């Protein structure tokens, strides 16, 4: 019994980690076809903002919200100044965001030194049998569910969501129909940045807050994104993060975390070969097949 709870908990933490690491990246990629290589640095900025706020006496939840807003605003500024010149030139965007990431990480090192004051992990521990679990990670899992539900609502049920989906499917047509495509892109990039900042702030207590911390999220985030695919943002995110952690969890529990991370990478490569357009294409394919039949 305790073993099952423990495995479920590990599955949840792995999936939550992958989701949080990838969410901002997925939103920007799925809606705008822009690969934001500065994503890890956006998360780093979120963590820095959270740490600064907490150590100025703000309560942690408020600090997290503040960091999300701050990084979101930063993202919008960056979009106006740089990123908007690269719509339709995906590879150019990739290179330019890499340049931004270099500036952000080394600039942070020079401006704030090699370390930022840590944030204590909020919450306590729950005990089941021999195992004990951090309540903070349980909270993070809940946050993931809330975030996904919120995104789903935003894109399915609001005016903005409708416009965004129209823009994603055919920007030229959307523009012809009077949708302000530029504005949709700007808001989407801001939203993706805010999500990255939020994730960075939420994960900040579990890591050491340093200029190059963003790098640890890059590989998992990309793997999640590639496996998820771009067809449906939220479906892909849920599908790939749960699928990947479904493989990683038992392997690392039974054979050690070395084999766990190897399993993660191998699964990703195999999945890409089977589903070149990602997990989200599965659903899409079934839908189109249904329509035909």
């Amino acid at each position, binding site marked *: 019994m305790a*073993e099952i709870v*423990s495995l479920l*908990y*590990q599955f949840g*933490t*792995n999936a939550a*980690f992958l989701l949080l690491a990838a969410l901002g990246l997925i939103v920007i990629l799925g809606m705008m076809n822009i690969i934001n290589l500065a994503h890890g640095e956006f998360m780093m900025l979120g963590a820095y903002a959270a740490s600064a706020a907490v150590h100025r006496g703000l309560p942690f939840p408020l600090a997290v919200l503040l960091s999300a807003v701050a990084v979101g605003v930063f993202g919008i500024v960056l979009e106006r100044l740089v990123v908007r010149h690269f719509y339709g030139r995906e590879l150019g965007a990739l290179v330019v965001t890499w340049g931004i990431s270099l500036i952000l990480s*080394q600039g942070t*090192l020079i401006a704030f030194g*090699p*370390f930022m004051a*840590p*944030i*204590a*992990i909020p*919450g*306590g*521990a*729950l*005990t089941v049998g*021999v*195992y*004990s*679990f*951090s309540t*903070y*990670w349980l909270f993070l899992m809940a946050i993931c569910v809330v975030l996904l539900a919120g995104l789903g609502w935003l894109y399915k049920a609001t005016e903005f969501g409708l416009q965004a989906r129209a823009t994603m499917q055919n920007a030229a047509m959307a523009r012809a129909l009077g949708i302000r495509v530029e504005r949709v892109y700007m808001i989407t990039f801001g939203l993706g940045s805010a999500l990255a900042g939020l994730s960075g702030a939420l994960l900040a*207590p*579990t*890591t*050491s807050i*340093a200029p*190059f*911390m963003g790098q*640890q999220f890059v*590989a998992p985030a990309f793997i999640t994104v590639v496996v998820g695919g771009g067809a449906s943002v939220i479906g892909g995110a849920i599908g790939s993060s749960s699928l990947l952690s479904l493989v990683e*969890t038992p392997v*690392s*529990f039974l054979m*050690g*975390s*070395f084999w*766990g*991370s190897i399993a993660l990478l191998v699964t990703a490569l195999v999945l890409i070969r089977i589903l070149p357009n990602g997990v989200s294409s599965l659903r899409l394919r079934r839908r189109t097949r249904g329509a035909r039949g």
Partner: protein
Amino acid sequence: MTDQTPPPETSVDGTAKASGPSRRTVLAGTAAAVGAAVLARPAIVRAASSDPVKIGFIEDQSGNLSIYGIQKLHAAQLAVAEINAGYTLAGGPVGPGVFGSNGLYAPKPETLKTDGAALDVVNDGGAPSKKATVVSDDDEILIKSGENGLLGRKVDLVSADGQSNNQLWQRLARRMIQQDKVDVLVAGFASAEREAIRPIVDQHKQLYFYTNQYEGGVADTNTFCTGAVCEQQVIPVMKYMVEKFGPKVFTIAANYNFGQLTASWVRSFAPVLGAEVIGEEFPPLEVSEFSSVIARVQAAKPDWVMTLLVGQNQSNYYPQAAASGLHLPMASTINMAQGYEHKRFKAPAMANMHNAVNYMQEIPTKRNQDFVARFYKMFPQDPYLGQMAQNTYFSVHLYAMAARLAGTTDQEKVRRTLEAGWTVEAPEGSVFLDPGTHACSHYIRLAVADQQQNISFEREWPSISPWWLTRMGVNLIGKPEHKQYTPDDDPFFKMFAAKKK
């Protein structure tokens, strides 16, 4: 503190037994004094013989490993400033003898009784017995050298930033050796950095000091490894942990050379020390999320955990384990003394951590407190003064002492002089440089972090020698070598290789 600041010249010429505050002002005035001396002298002395002695120094001042590199750089700068201001450390060649034969310090027996109850704790700084000791920990170790600089020349620290990038390390090492033609090279934090530049060092027969704590085994004619090695750290800390907490140990080690090799020391010495390794886990360096590691540890129910985690990602283990309610006693050979995790992480992430260190800035002896004061006088902004910074400090002094005795900076002759068997009075205590293996015996202390992450020293071993290379038959004087031995080369370790996972 009084704000009396005598002119720098007077304090430079002050006696070695100068009182605390006035001696501290020495260093404040050092730079000014050196500058004034250079300005005061006419250009006549700029002959070839008065070219500065060059100490090449490569560390990571930026990138991932900069928290270690900057400490080391500052310690080297302090040592160079002291040499140029006319100071040296106490000590000298004692021949290939044993610790204490220089008559400076004599060992004290272990202070913990076998039942573990009556601790003769020295965390209040204690008063060590004066019996059988010639120089106590309270005596001054920084003494006059009789000249400003080295061999009548100024000492220059030629430093470069390795940026935590091995390829750059190689290019910088080549530049130091071939272009700057440094007289000695002091460099390297990670073992990978040392191994990257060692082929270049050997190719040019460059005198080289590696000052980090490491996995041991380097037997190289041109290299002096002055940090502590596995046999000096793993065995003491394991012995203590087994006595205090029980035999069952779970090892979590970084999956790279240092972690693998140190874990094999733990595994092989467990039967000898009455311990039992009930589980091992080798997370890759990239892993930063540890829930499955924590679950495996909880399932195995060990008495204590050996954590040999390296780098920024892996240090996340500690807050995550604490938040998951994993409060087992921990032992390590690297944490706290290098990356000052007890200062960086919120308590109680590092609570109940035990590490057999050769140095931490909290060591309560007077000689160390003086050293710490000198360091922060020069670098008031620094967050911590750690183990490898102290090693760098005494290594630079040791080089100057040997060159002064050799009467030359000729690298071959200085190396031969260093092979005379030296005792140097370092801030940690007496250090003996073994001629045959180029490794140092160290004063080892068991550092423990309490719930507030304050450090105390629960047990001391005044001299543990680096015996493993001797056991492997290494004698660099009789038989030059350029390799790194690993436990695979020692049949003793093979006996335990097939031990259950």
